[in-house]
């Protein structure tokens, strides 16, 4: 056919400048929310703008955020892990048990990460090898992992962690910068780079958007998913380390309900719960938003359970409002 128009020789790389795109992004909207909450808090309580108070407040989100980074990748890839809080319980119990046999801090670190890794591998086998839906598998392992902790501990608690172990959850690097804060930043950078700047990260997005197409593009879908479950497990193990160190004791009910807070943080950060899109900067900002809300309400002596109402409203609100606007805009256009 000769009547075809001349081929376009120069398709531009980008439709809009990066700045224009950034300004319309979820992350910027979320950042505005974070700043607003910060300002409101400054006026609401005289104790808010205090370096040590703010430093204390970071404990509200650092452990959850560490898991949320790995969870974000997993959810972007179209899977989910609801067993993370139970992995914390199991890893913490294993550490407590090891302490009874005289384990030192180095051994405890190894045990915690190993338990996390094994739990992640357990989930991964069910999801990737047996091909089962991750939401059901991890609801099952959520009971199983915590159940094992209950079998070992019952009503008891493990204490007596070595003094040097306290470094992870109670230590400071310099001035008000906590050890956990440092890990939070390090992991944020690592996961951000992995997701946004590596081949692995690209594969995660491709799988989340269309696993079949990704497979047909030569991506090793099951292998990538397996690795993601391992990562989520290891991060839960690491969070167990920090949390146990901070609390100084282990009960089987440790971190209960945390899986929901982690998922909330990820979704609030703009990750699509159905997979395919989301960013690590978004999750970082979401971590701050949740931390600031919790801290601010805490200063106003609002009990924890009421804070969770705010978190729940935030979760639904941030997703519902844009859709509601879109619906109203469409409705008025017709």
């Amino acid at each position, binding site marked *: 056919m000769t009547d075809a128009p001349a081929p376009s020789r120069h398709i531009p790389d*980008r439709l809009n400048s990066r700045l224009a795109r950034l300004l319309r992004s979820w992350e910027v909207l979320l950042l505005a929310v974070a700043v607003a909450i910060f300002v409101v808090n400054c006026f609401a309580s005289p104790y808010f703008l205090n370096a040590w108070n703010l430093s204390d407040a970071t404990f509200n989100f650092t452990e959850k955020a560490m898991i949320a980074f790995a969870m974000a990748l997993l959810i972007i890839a179209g899977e989910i892990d609801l067993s993370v809080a139970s992995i914390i319980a199991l890893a913490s119990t294993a550490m407590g048990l090891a302490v009874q046999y005289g384990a030192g801090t180095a051994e405890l670190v190894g045990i915690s990460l190993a338990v996390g890794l094994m739990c992640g591998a357990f989930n991964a086998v069910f999801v990737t090898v047996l091909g089962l839906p991750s939401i059901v598998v991890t609801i099952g392992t959520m009971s199983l992992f915590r159940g094992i902790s209950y079998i070992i501990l019952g009503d008891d608690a493990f204490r007596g962690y070595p003094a040097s172990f306290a470094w992870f959850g109670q230590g400071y690097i310099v001035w008000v910068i906590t050890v956990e804060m440092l890990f939070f930043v390090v992991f944020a950078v690592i996961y951000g780079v992995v997701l946004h700047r590596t081949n692995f990260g690209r594969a995660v997005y*491709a799988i989340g958007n269309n696993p079949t197409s990704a497979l*047909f593009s030569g991506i090793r879908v099951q292998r990538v998913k397996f690795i993601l479950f391992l990562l989520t497990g290891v991060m839960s193990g690491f969070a167990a380390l920090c949390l146990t160190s901070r609390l100084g004791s282990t009960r089987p009910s440790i971190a209960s309900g945390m899986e929901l807070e982690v998922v909330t943080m990820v979704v609030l950060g703009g990750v699509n719960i159905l997979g395919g899109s989301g960013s690590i900067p978004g999750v970082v900002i979401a971590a701050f938003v949740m931390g600031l809300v919790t801290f601010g309400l805490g200063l106003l002596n609002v009990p924890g359970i009421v804070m969770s109402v705010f978190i729940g409203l935030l979760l639904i609100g941030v997703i519902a409002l844009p859709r509601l606007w879109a619906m109203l805009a469409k409705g008025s256009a017709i």
Partner: protein
Amino acid sequence: MTDAVTSAQTPVVSMDAITKTFPGVKALDQVRLDLYPGQVTALVGENGAGKSTTVKVLTGIYQPDGGTIRIDGDPVRFAGPKDASAAGITAIHQETVLFDELCVAENIFLGHAPRSRLGLIDTAEMHRRAAALLAEIGAPFDTYTMLRDLGIANKHLVAIARALSVDARVVIMDEPTAALSHKEIEELYALVETLKSQGKAILFISHKFDEIFRIADRYTVFRDGSFVGEGKIAEIDENALVKLMVGRAVDQIFPERTVAPGEDVLQVVGYSHPTEFADIGFTLRRGEILGFYGLVGAGRSEFMQTLFGITRPSKGVCKINGAIRVIRSPAAAVGNGIVYVPEDRGKQGAVIGLPIFQNITLPSLGRTSRAGFIRLAEEFALARQYAERLDLRAAALDQDVGNLSGGNQQKVVIAKWLATQPQVIILDEPTKGIDIGSKAAVHDFMAELAAQGLSVIMVSSEIPEVIGMSDRVIVMRDGRIAAELSGDELTPETLVRHAAGITAAPRLQEA
């Protein structure tokens, strides 16, 4: 029933100046369509002509933006599928719109089951009526069978029974023979005759011309969402109908090819799969186009997907450039220079949601990264190189693939594979569902690739394309190779004969 001859004068259903727009597309533009009792009207047009949209408007799934639908001369409005059904319009849809987890009777009567006095579903009555319908169409299964236990052809019979269950006056059949075997198609024709004799108006949508000339009484032609003509089948011939469809005379011209195939690139010996195909073997040479012809369901795509590593063979050897390669994943296939452009573009083609450039570089990221870290500038350069080679039409490379037309999405998939610099490219039904102009472009491009030394395997069900493009053709039937044809043996008759397994008579049965 009134006399068939007099009632044939007035249509049961008449669509007039129907318009339907979607964001960016005018799917239907002032189209008209009349359906007469006791007659089969064929709706003819290329893909994208607006046939499916018409079906959806007639069955109340879409509401038209303009125009009127009249039933027996009275204007009606369908707010939803229930209204259309109540008006006596029923459809056997292209996709199977049935439910695996319900039994046959429930599938037939979902939405209009007989009720008992308490308002509950009268199960006994439902099964009794369903059994009567199944007997009427000669279905060989009972009403308690779960749908998931039925094969495709039998599911189709359930769909037909469902259409008949509403006591319809108008039956729409959207490509009803696409998934059926020869014998089943004959049974369907008999059923259409029965429906005609009952005075029902039938809208028959098909791409197969022999079918249209065999069972239709009237035709209506759409092109690009517009009405272009109608009349009696008896008063038109095949060429004239094609001319109406495409708006110009078509004598498909295939590119002239002069390159002689070179050395052996791919050798497949005894490839077998437990259930889908057995003992497939052939040799593919450099710069060759090897056609794979066969009926739908002959196992061609299943074999190609095994060759590409999606599924694993139970037996067989694959040699590339003389060396044995074990291909157990698509990644391994790509690593060995074999790439596959799938037929099911929606599910297996481009990754919708990712931008164009990321789609193109997805399997080649190793080339645009260092130690696993992506170099964006190199990535864009690679993507642009192949986007321009394929003459991709896009606003920008970071545009979502989902915003491209189907043809351009297909180009992205091909660009993605060419960027991996493959040795063998498998094209599964490469021109299915694209318009004639784009078809020629795909054919030219295929010839160009072969001339540059790429070996092409083309799976196609279109006889002119198979004959016009291939150097050699392998015909598959029921999962096995039925024949390998080249040169003078390569005629439409031999292809059809081998594909259908007619070995005795070389003459085609008159349609």
